[in-house]
């Protein structure tokens, strides 16, 4: 199990999706959960504080998830932040584009709580092994 004290930022323009993710993460024991309603807001938060993990939707107004990811990977402050893209875009090209842009993993909606837990544990396990 990953460290439940880690700071997680949920980025999704849908209030409901943020609520579902927050509820699932709370059920998994995570306590430090923050929200942003689009890439712009997330980017502003990331310039003020550090997060351990970002769970971001792809399709959002203003700055989308892919552009947010590219900004993060190009930045000095937060380039190593773990990033999971959560999206309904399930085609191979989209997955490849996200991974090439630096996503640590990818979750296709709809998803179950155990799929989310598995992905988080996997990327934290990998991160610990390589840090």
């Amino acid at each position, binding site marked *: 199990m990953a460290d439940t004290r880690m700071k997680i930022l949920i980025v999704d323009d*849908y209030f409901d999706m943020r609520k579902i993710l927050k509820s699932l993460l709370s059920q998994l024991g995570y306590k430090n959960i923050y929200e942003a309603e689009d890439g712009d807001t997330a980017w502003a938060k990331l310039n003020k504080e550090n997060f351990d993990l970002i769970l971001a939707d792809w399709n959002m107004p203003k700055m989308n998830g892919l552009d947010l990811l590219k900004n993060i990977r190009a930045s000095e402050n937060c380039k190593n932040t773990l990033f999971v893209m959560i999206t309904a875009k*399930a085609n191979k090209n989209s997955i490849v584009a996200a991974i090439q842009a630096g996503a640590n993993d990818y979750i296709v*909606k709809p998803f179950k709580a155990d799929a989310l837990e598995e992905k988080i544990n996997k990327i934290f396990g990998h991160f610990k092994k390589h840090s």
Partner: protein
Amino acid sequence: MEPKYIQPFLTATIKVLKTMAFTVPKAGEYYIKTDKKTMGDISGIIGFTGAKQGALVVSFSNACALKVVSAMLMEDYTEVNEEIYDAVGEITNMISGDARQQLEKLGMKFEAGIPTVVTGKGHKIRFKRNGPCHCHVIPFTCDGLEFFVEASFES
């Protein structure tokens, strides 16, 4: 549009509701409608481009939307509000994503936009600017409450 291209919308709808709202909707008999009037009170709409121009509409009765969203968000909603509209948009988005993945396997690749939500009893949705509207409709029920999945593509 051949029926095999409509099947992905049926399976995607069942998958999304089963996974996110823990309910398995019952599909009724598929039909084609020619008018623009939707059957529900709240509709999520998403446009498709690519192999063909088209649109997906997921239209819920108020009662069905309340039931599904309450299950999805694990909270008892008794009035239709912004959260319900938001969830209908997200459900539409997920059905679109899953159906497009299946359609791609059948050789039809689509891109989709960001969903829009329209409300009001008997609201009308124009699928194409010119010509007749041929819309494939799959009616569903969740515990006896109705919703409709409509897929419309240019011929």
